[in-house]
């Protein structure tokens, strides 16, 4: 089933939670709504569920306008962050509840509940009350309750945020597998970019009620459209340097008080230097910086602190007055205060207009 938002706006009083949203989810797609808290992602989810009505615009499932369809008639399953299990019912009754409301026969209900419970491995807990379950178990019950209806679309609101780190990594894979097996639409709301990157087919990234971009994870990571996306996606986050663009003897340089770097010839193909302003922000990911011996076209920095991460080391350095992060091989060793040279992988740099915050990358053809 396709889910289509057409000029959807949701206001609460004077506050605009979702601002003119236009987006189209494909049939059977796993979409993540990603953004910081208060960006409108949960409001968007609750509009799909039918709990909130859009203030203007249209929400469509395939070609049917859903704006005035009640939640119960939308054939959706939803998992809440708080799990929202019914505390006075047993696990069995919780999962059976949507089926009972559909007036199914007792045998059919039992069969379906067992199926759903086994799928999420809680078959042995059916007689318990939610209060007697651990967080992870409650989360599975809420998944089973959403699945048992065989919904066309599953909505997940921060489903993993209350689980411990190890369980979260396991559930990430399990939910993704479940979605692929069932082939249904899934919409995941999260503020955790790792969750979005690992689970979703495509990510809709939102900020202040506005959609920033909607694309596959690799594209958002490799070619962020603006500063917000560049900053939000990636862990450890991208490094940013305020620079000025200057042209000297046919060559382009970026410089500020402490650095001056020559941009290679190839960057003219990637970036549109002709129409952009001169005040730019240079962005580069920690893994695209290397500590070298060479002093040619590099940054001079001082070691601030080195954090071993096991697989590699995270080196914090100071250039001028600002701190930057570099991923270094595990054998790298240095003491605080050591002077080092850092070279950039120029094929991976990002340049953003300082005022509009948009990337000055040329559009791919």
């Amino acid at each position, binding site marked *: 089933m396709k889910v289509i938002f057409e000029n959807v706006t949701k206001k*609460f009083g004077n506050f605009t939670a979702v601002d003119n949203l236009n987006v189209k989810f494909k049939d059977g797609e796993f979409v993540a709504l990603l953004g910081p808290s208060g960006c409108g992602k949960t409001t968007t989810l*609750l509009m799909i*569920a*039918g*709990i909130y009505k859009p203030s203007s615009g249209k929400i469509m499932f395939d070609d049917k306008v859903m704006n005035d369809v*009640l*939640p*119960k008639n*939308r054939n*959706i*399953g*939803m998992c*809440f*962050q*708080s799990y*929202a*299990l*019914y*505390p*006075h019912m047993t696990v069995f009754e919780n999962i059976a*509840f*949507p089926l009972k*409301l*559909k007036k199914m026969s007792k045998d059919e209900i039992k069969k379906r509940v067992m199926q759903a419970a086994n799928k999420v491995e809680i078959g042995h807990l059916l007689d318990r009350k939610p209060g007697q379950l651990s967080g992870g178990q409650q989360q599975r019950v809420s998944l089973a*309750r959403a699945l048992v*209806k065989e919904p066309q679309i599953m909505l997940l609101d921060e489903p993993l945020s209350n689980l411990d780190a190890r369980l979260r990594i396991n559930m990430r894979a399990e939910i993704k597998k479940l979605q692929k097996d069932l082939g249904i639409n899934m919409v995941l709301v999260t503020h955790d970019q790792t969750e979005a990157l690992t689970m979703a087919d495509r990510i809709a990234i939102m900020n202040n009620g506005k959609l920033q971009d909607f694309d596959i994870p690799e594209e958002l990571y490799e070619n962020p459209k603006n500063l917000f996306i560049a900053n939000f996606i990636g862990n450890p986050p991208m490094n940013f340097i305020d620079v000025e663009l200057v042209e000297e003897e046919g060559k382009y340089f970026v410089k500020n008080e402490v650095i001056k770097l020559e941009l290679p010839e190839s960057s003219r193909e990637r970036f549109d230097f002709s129409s952009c302003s001169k005040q730019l922000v240079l962005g580069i990911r920690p893994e695209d910086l290397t500590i070298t011996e060479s002093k040619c076209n590099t940054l001079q920095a001082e070691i601030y602190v080195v954090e071993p991460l096991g697989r590699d080391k995270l080196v914090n350095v100071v250039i001028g007055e600002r701190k930057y992060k570099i991923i270094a091989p595990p054998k790298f060793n240095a003491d605080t205060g050591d002077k080092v040279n850092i070279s950039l992988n120029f094929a991976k740099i990002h340049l953003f207009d300082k005022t509009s915050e948009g990337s000055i990358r040329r559009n791919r053809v």
Partner: protein
Amino acid sequence: MGLIQKDRLETIIPRVMVYVVLVIVSLPLFIAYGWLFLNSLSDGAFGGIIPNKFTLQNWRFLWSEVRIGTTAFQSIWPITWNTFVLAAGITVIEILIAALSGFALSRMKFAGKDLIMKLTIFLHAFPGVALLIALYIVLQKLNLLDKLLGVILVKVALELPMATWMMKGFFDGIPWDIEWASYIDGCNRLQTWWKIIIPQLKPGIAAVAIFAFMSGWSEFIYAFTFIYSPENYTLAIYLKNLIGDFKMLDYGLLCAAGLFYMIPTILFFIFSQKSLMKVSFGGVKGPN
């Protein structure tokens, strides 16, 4: 004195103090009830205070007709039943209305909601006795005078604001997520109210019910004013009539009848203490 002993004293003394204060405060109540109980089983009393010979004579109203002077009192059992009907009627009607109005005030958005909330508090603060004459006329016009139903309706009307506020507090404590989940699972509003919300509201309903029942059971002024046929009397009126003639006053009988009147209240309190403790107002509020 050793240091350890001194430390021990320092922890014990405050505890002893607490007990002393509690005993002093609760002693008058305890003595009063104890005295009531002893006198109800005693044949007269020295100076009206110190119990005398053991007797069950004072409890004779339970099994025979009571006469004081020339007045004959009818059996206490129909009167007890009347009192029960009054208290239960108030409880049931109040719960039904408060459970619906509390839900609306807690969960729905509508024009004038704040005004209604403020007005209900104002109504609650209004002294009911001031309405006595007006209510008499209203009941007369409605043909509800001298009927238990009349008293029930008056009582419900006056207590509903408080009950609604209490209920609203309990509804506020139920998370929105659970309600939303039930809508998505296929409930309409009424089904959600009945299948999801009300079961979680049991402590709240219990608390409101207890308050309503207690106040109905001990209701005097409206019953005394609006009811004048003996077959519709309640225990409060019965008790008042026992004192009716001061010259003939039988204190033993009065004590026994008073104790009889209190028994349901005491039992109710013993069994419902836990629910009563849960009463709270306001509390959590979800997004609107």
